[in-house]
């Protein structure tokens, strides 16, 4: 790794991840933790909202909606209490930034939650944690307990008169609960299915009260902005995508992991940081932000990884979960695996997602087996057209994004699937990162 590329990193959220027991309150405080909270409590909520707005922080969950603007939508005259809900239901294939953050430094999130609650006038905040990651939930609960003991949570925080209660809520294992309105239903104890909008959560969210829903990383980014100021934050990144963020590299790279860098870094630079693609292989395709963002190829290596750069290439920044696939990978098989995921996770509420994903899987299974028939590609694309933008929520848009983008860049591979099984074209053992007896047999 060259010196130059190391300079590209801007560890802020990840700064203390390597510290001894970084998740303990005392260790967090030793590196300046909760100083931002003391500073924030001296400001008015409106000042904090404006600070976050001016800093240019945009939602780190994928859509990139300006966080400060979302906060300012909370009606001031609503008689119901305001709630802050933090979306920690990180379940997208490839995405792995919030869970490491909460494991390594849960107090960063807790501190952000307290400041954000104060800023929007919420006395109750919830962290909705993906149900499968029990270890994360426990670590958060421990951190919350510590924060209560230290007077950072509860009544009259640090003598400021501000009250905030923070609840850790484990989900029950459904990708759809990452969709914010489904998350609210699930948090209320109902079956997680997306709600009709309007009313929007800012007006009638949790328990029909004004609710702000933010991603873990967005909220965790608030303390450093309070600490270092909006100029410091907006000095990083690109014109419209400010600040630093966590990029997660996985797949066929030498050193997978989280890399915190300013918005707008390129995949070429990140790959360098990660030691490049596996020896003897080259990049075939990649996702910018998890499986629901359309895939890109090696021709996109130098595009800035920010909201605009990715949108310009017909994809999305998403969760910055960069899944790297080298030339041993069958794009047909990869697409099938992703669509199988969406079929499994479709909540069933609306027709196109529920039925369409069921159908797509059947076509892709046929294609993987080399049993495709003439017209399957066109049919698949037409089904995608009937699913994407026709369904109740965005889950189905993600489900078809991988299909349409895979066909866009690798149509000939799908055509080969009319006669040759994917496992013959791309023996599966070769793309395995770790040898498994089952897949090795195919090699």
């Amino acid at each position, binding site marked *: 790794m060259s010196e130059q590329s190391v300079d590209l990193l801007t560890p802020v959220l990840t700064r203390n991840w390597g510290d001894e027991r970084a998740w303990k309150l005392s260790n967090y405080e030793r590196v300046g933790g909760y100083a931002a909270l003391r500073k924030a409590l001296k400001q008015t909520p409106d000042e904090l909202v404006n600070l976050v707005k001016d800093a240019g922080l945009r939602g780190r969950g994928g859509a990139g909606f300006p966080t400060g603007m979302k906060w300012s939508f909370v009606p001031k005259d609503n008689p119901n209490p305001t709630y802050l809900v933090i979306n920690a239901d990180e379940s997208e294939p490839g995405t792995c930034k919030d869970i490491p953050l909460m494991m390594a430094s849960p107090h960063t999130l807790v501190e952000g939650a307290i400041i954000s609650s104060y800023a929007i006038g919420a006395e109750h905040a919830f962290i909705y944690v993906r149900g499968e990651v029990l270890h994360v939930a426990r670590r958060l609960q421990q951190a919350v307990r510590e924060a209560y003991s230290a007077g950072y949570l509860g009544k009259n925080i640090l003598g400021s008169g501000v009250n905030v209660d923070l609840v850790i809520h484990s989900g029950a294992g459904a990708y759809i609960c990452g969709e914010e309105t489904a998350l609210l239903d699930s948090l209320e104890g109902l079956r997680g299915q997306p709600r009709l909008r309007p009313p929007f959560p800012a007006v009638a969210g949790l328990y029909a009260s004004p609710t702000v829903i933010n991603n873990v990383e967005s909220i965790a980014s608030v303390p450093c902005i309070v600490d270092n100021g909006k100029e410091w934050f907006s000095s990083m990144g690109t014109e419209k995508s400010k600040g630093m963020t966590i990029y997660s590299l996985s797949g066929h790279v030498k050193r997978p992991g989280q890399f915190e860098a300013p918005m707008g870094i390129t995949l070429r630079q990140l790959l360098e940081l990660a030691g490049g693609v596996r020896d003897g292989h080259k990049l075939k395709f990649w996702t910018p932000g998890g499986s629901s963002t359309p895939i890109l190829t090696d021709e996109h290596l130098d595009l800035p990884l920010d909201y605009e750069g990715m949108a310009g290439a017909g994809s999305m920044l998403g969760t910055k979960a960069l899944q790297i696939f080298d030339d041993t990978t069958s794009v047909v098989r990869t697409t099938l695996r992703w669509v199988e995921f969406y079929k499994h996770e479709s909540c069933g509420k609306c*027709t196109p997602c529920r039925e369409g994903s069921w159908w797509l899987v059947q076509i892709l299974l046929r294609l993987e087996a080399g049993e495709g028939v003439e017209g399957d590609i066109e049919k698949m694309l037409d089904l995608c057209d009937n699913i994407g933008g026709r369904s109740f929520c965005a889950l189905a848009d993600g489900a078809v994004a991988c299909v349409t983008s895979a066909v866009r860049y690798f149509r000939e591979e799908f055509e080969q699937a009319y006669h040759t099984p994917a496992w013959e074209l791309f023996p599966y053992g070769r793309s395995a990162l770790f040898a498994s007896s089952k897949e090795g047999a195919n090699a």
Partner: protein
Amino acid sequence: MTAADTSSEVTPRPDLVALTIDGIEVSVPKGTLIIRAAETAGVNIPRFCDHPLLDPVGACRQCLVDIPDAGNGRGFPKPQASCTMEVAPGMVVNTQVTSPVAKKAQEGMLEFLLMNHPLDCPICDKGGECPLQNQALSHGKAESRFEGVKRTFPKPINISSQILLDRERCVLCARCTRFSEQIAGDPFIALVERGALQQVGIYESEPFESYFSGNTIQICPVGALTSSIYRFRSRPFDLVSVPSIAEHDACGAAIRVDHRRGEVMRRLAGDDPEVNEEWITDRDRFAFRSARGTDRITTPLVRDGDTLRPASWPEAIDVAVAGLREAISGGAAQTARRGTDSASGRVGVLTGGRLTRENAYGYSKFARTVLNTNSIDFRSRPSSNEEAEFLAHAVAGTGLGVTNADLEQASTVLLVDFEPEDEAGTVFLRLRKANRKSGLKIWTVAPYLSRGSVKMGAGLVPTPPGAEAEVLGELPAEVELDAGSIILIGERAATVPGTLSAALGLAEQTGARLAWIPRRAGDRGAVEVGCLPGLLPGGRPVADASARVDVQAVWGSETLPGDDGLDAAGMLTAAAGGDFALVVAGVEPGDFADPDAVRTGLENASFVVSLEIRRSEVTDRADVVFPVALNEQQAGSFVNWEGREREFEAALPDKTTMNDLRVLAALADALGGDLGVRTPAAAAAEIAELDRWDGDRAAAPTSTISGSGDQDGAGDGELALATWRTMIDASRSNDGEDALLGTARRPVARVGVRTARDLGLGERVMVSTTAGQLELPLEVVPDMVNGVVWLPTNAPGFSVTENLRVLAGGTVSVNPLDSAEEEGEDK
């Protein structure tokens, strides 16, 4: 719509929103959904999940339309569900008619919906009337491109004894689950699992036992929900449909009767926004075959010693005439002895509450003009003189009073001795809707908050049985009644002296409107046509000579009896004495306060003529029995609780059966009189001619409150009884409907927490009186008034009147059933 609007009748309404749909400008009220605005432009957007009476859900995505301009100059990049979006001024909507995008989206949705849908239309109940089938033809592509494996489930599963679910036919529109949750308030079915395996499910321990479950079958847009009584019985296109009126309660719900080969196959809810909207109770839907058993009477019967033997009509009429003539002349002789100018004979008429208004009119006129008596009473249930006075004063001849729509607009509704869910299902749905949609405040004068009351969001005015009158006199301050309020009083109020008078007083004092809601379909009609001793048709008081003259003029009779007739109890007492004859229509002894007194009366009566459809305890004790037509075989009308006339035609006209009116006319002829009307139409015309009484109304009842006992002494196991009939009970009109009865609520005894503790009651209790006892499971309810136990009046196998010989407000003993329960006392 380019024609200049020159009509001066059209006044611009400020709450209208103008938008363009498929190039057609339409104006609709603010808040209208696009899918319904399109209907005004003549465009039918296909839909499955959308239902005008359910909250929008946007699940099926069938109704996607293109919106190039949302009214703000900007359009939506993607097609939008027209069933969830409200119109906006200046909005431009392009449906499948003009937008290729919308058309393709809709075709795509139908292809998806059909993909996993079985092709079993030829054996599906819905085939031929199926929205999926219809819309696949009208809006779908001719061929499916699906070549894969369909999702399958094991064939139907019972979600109740009545409702079956074919999961693979289900398109997951959530109409049934939304109906159950939103309309009925019985969320016993819900969508479970996810993705394409999502399905309607029930809780393991709680089957789909709702009084309104059948509506889900009707609104199901596919054949996923079917009923066990209709499944595989018929094809929609083989059925003949006739609109009719339901006969199981006083709501007058519109129904559709579907018949084939002379037999009713099923009944559906009719669409009547004024009355039942699009919903009916399960009893109205599923209970229609009780007269198909072997006990249907098909020929006249005459007594031959201990048995009844079939007889010809002329013979039966001769026998009846002989018996009745003796009773009438006996009465005349008595009159002569007494020296009065007019007196009722030794004969009376019990009509029951199930007759059509026209048949009831026949009895009323027959009693007055042929039998020369005012002894006629429709009340085959606990009743009182106060009630008769109340009906004469406040109900008879008042026309359309409080309406269903009024309930929705009311400021407050106070329920007195009235459980809408059990006793008038349509009223229950209205009240629940009003509470849910606009927060209508409902109070109930009752011993506890029943499940129905909870579902209406009602507040409890805690009232031990028997104390209703006192409570009405001193309502808690939070029960605020004003001129916009409505008091709904049930027929059970008759059993507590002073209640009806107190309700009248309360209405007068607060300006609130009062409505009486009986249980039976024919009750209000019977009041209107004078099936009470003190009333002539149109609410005319018998005691008022000018009222009698009114009626005489129409009837062409020289005199009418002007004396006090006997009520039902009086007639039965007289009959028990032996010198009194009875003409009896649909009456069951078990419905009366004292069933044995009814039996004794019938047995000792000098002569009994019974007009019935089935063998009954009355026919068994009758001297002559005439078979009469079923409701489905005759035209007629019911007057519902609102005072609304609900006319219906014969669903299965049958010239070989005689209705009550025709039999009475024949008897009148044979007795040398003339009933003057022989058909329902003629009776209806005469009722219309009589019109409503416009003279002085009968005086209000002046009953004083008899102090109710202090109900606080629960220590010795003596509790005050609260009881009413549940909707699905042991009524004979539910006979043979095992699937329906399977959804009846489990009979339980309910007591409050303190009473249960004080008496050490466990899971089962013995409820007893000196007359008998009943064993029941116990249910402890939190808000039951102390010292009170509630029992269903007539659950299958558990009759309060037969087994305990006690009425609401009476005293019963409640004891733990066995020692096992006593051990749990300390808990």
